[in-house]
């Protein structure tokens, strides 16, 4: 297993938990004005999920730091423990983790201690947003400047709002016992939110692909980054097809029990695919060398060899010889 895959396997649950916490809390806050169903009841039906996600974030974050340290120092996880203080004090990633870890702890505390639901929901939303921003600052985007980081952050926000709205709709409808009218209104709200989130995802995703691949079919087809992107976009299109069916077929008929049940089932499937497949592949993308780089001048032996095994770079070296 390569270092990239190692990192992606750790980052996946972390990012999935962050975007889900951000999105579900955001959806509950957006629904706060809804009179037919109390926000407290909606928040209460999501509380167990939030506690679980906060625990995942809190437990996985130090492991990601250890993995990052081991990769940077080129040592095992055990040996990396000795480097952690230096990494925290002297590197960009370390300084971010000095913020990330305490915020993850506060998030866990906020999810677990007794608090009024509105205050808890707001705190979790803000802390998840802060952690997503730090995550964006830790990504490849940091190499490309502030705009790239902002775009990456907006990409995370868009996917969070989409997944969160879907998951919150399904969980509140399933466990919160809201009246049918709430499900109808919430379904329409989720549909609108999902539409704008998809627009945001496509725009920000295009920009990120723009940075990572270049106008080169070879990069797209033969680099790990390009192939992972193709897989991610393929699954995304599948989820989009389910979403379009929901939006144009089921949502207009959501007052009918059969359509409502079918909608809730589809929403559940969509959110699971998004979290497992799309966020998983996105984590792999975030830890795979983008195919486009300026490389060397003059001497082919200067072609850098990524420590992590990459099909593209193997190919590039073969081409160079």
């Amino acid at each position: 297993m390569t270092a990239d895959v190692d990192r992606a396997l750790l980052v996946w649950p972390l990012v999935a938990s962050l975007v889900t916490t951000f999105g579900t809390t955001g959806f509950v806050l957006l629904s706060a004005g809804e009179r037919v169903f109390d926000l407290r009841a909606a928040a209460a039906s999501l509380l167990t999920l939030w506690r679980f996600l906060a625990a995942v974030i809190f437990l996985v974050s130090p492991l990601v730091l250890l993995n990052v340290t081991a990769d940077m120092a080129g040592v095992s996880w055990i040996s990396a423990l000795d480097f952690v203080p230096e990494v925290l004090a002297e590197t960009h990633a370390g300084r971010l983790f000095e913020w990330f870890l305490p915020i993850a702890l506060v998030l866990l505390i906020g999810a677990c201690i007794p608090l009024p639901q509105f205050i808890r929901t707001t705190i979790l939303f803000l802390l998840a947003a802060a952690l997503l921003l730090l995550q964006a600052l830790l990504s490849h985007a940091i190499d490309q400047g502030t705009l790239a980081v902002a775009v990456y952050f907006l990409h995370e926000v868009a996917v969070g709002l989409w997944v969160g709205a879907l998951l919150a709709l399904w969980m509140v409808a399933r466990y919160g016992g809201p009246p049918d009218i709430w499900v109808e209104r919430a379904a329409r709200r989720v549909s609108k939110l999902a539409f704008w989130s998809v627009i945001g995802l496509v725009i920000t995703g295009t920009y990120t692909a723009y940075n990572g691949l270049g106008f080169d079919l070879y990069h797209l087809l033969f680099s790990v980054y390009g192939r992972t992107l193709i897989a991610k976009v393929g699954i995304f299109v599948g989820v989009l097809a389910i979403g379009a069916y929901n939006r144009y077929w089921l949502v207009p008929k959501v007052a009918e029990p059969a359509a409502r049940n079918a909608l809730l089932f589809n929403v559940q499937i969509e959110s699971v695919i998004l979290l497992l497949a799309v966020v998983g592949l996105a984590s792999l993308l975030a830890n795979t060398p983008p195919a486009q780089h300026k490389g060397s001048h003059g001497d082919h032996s200067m072609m850098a060899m990524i420590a992590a095994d990459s099909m593209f770079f193997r190919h590039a070296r073969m081409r160079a010889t």
Partner: protein
Amino acid sequence: MNKRALALLSGTFLALIVGVTVAASAHAFPEQESPSAGATLSEPPAQVTIKYDAPIEKLFASLEVLNSAGQNEAVGKPEVSPDGWKLSVPVNKLPPGEYTVQWNVVCIDTHHTQGSYSFTVEAHS
């Protein structure tokens, strides 16, 4: 969804599939070297410098200038410029011969790259 929104969605999605370009990269790769890769110099360099296309971490940066016997001719530890883009190290007065520059850096995105290149110092006539 109106036709305009559909066109916007289709257009941006097509762009995503096809891919468009910008001169940027992730991970740190050499953008410029001094002496440059493959160069033949009439005078030995006082130092070796590599400019990267992304900022690097000082903590894990290494730069060695090896002679044909494999001995490191660098003097002291390599320095990273304050902005993080350049790695340089002073070298001994190099006698004529071929030298291999070996670098090993960690980009601020935490990913590790390494590589090498050669240059030659010519004998004085």
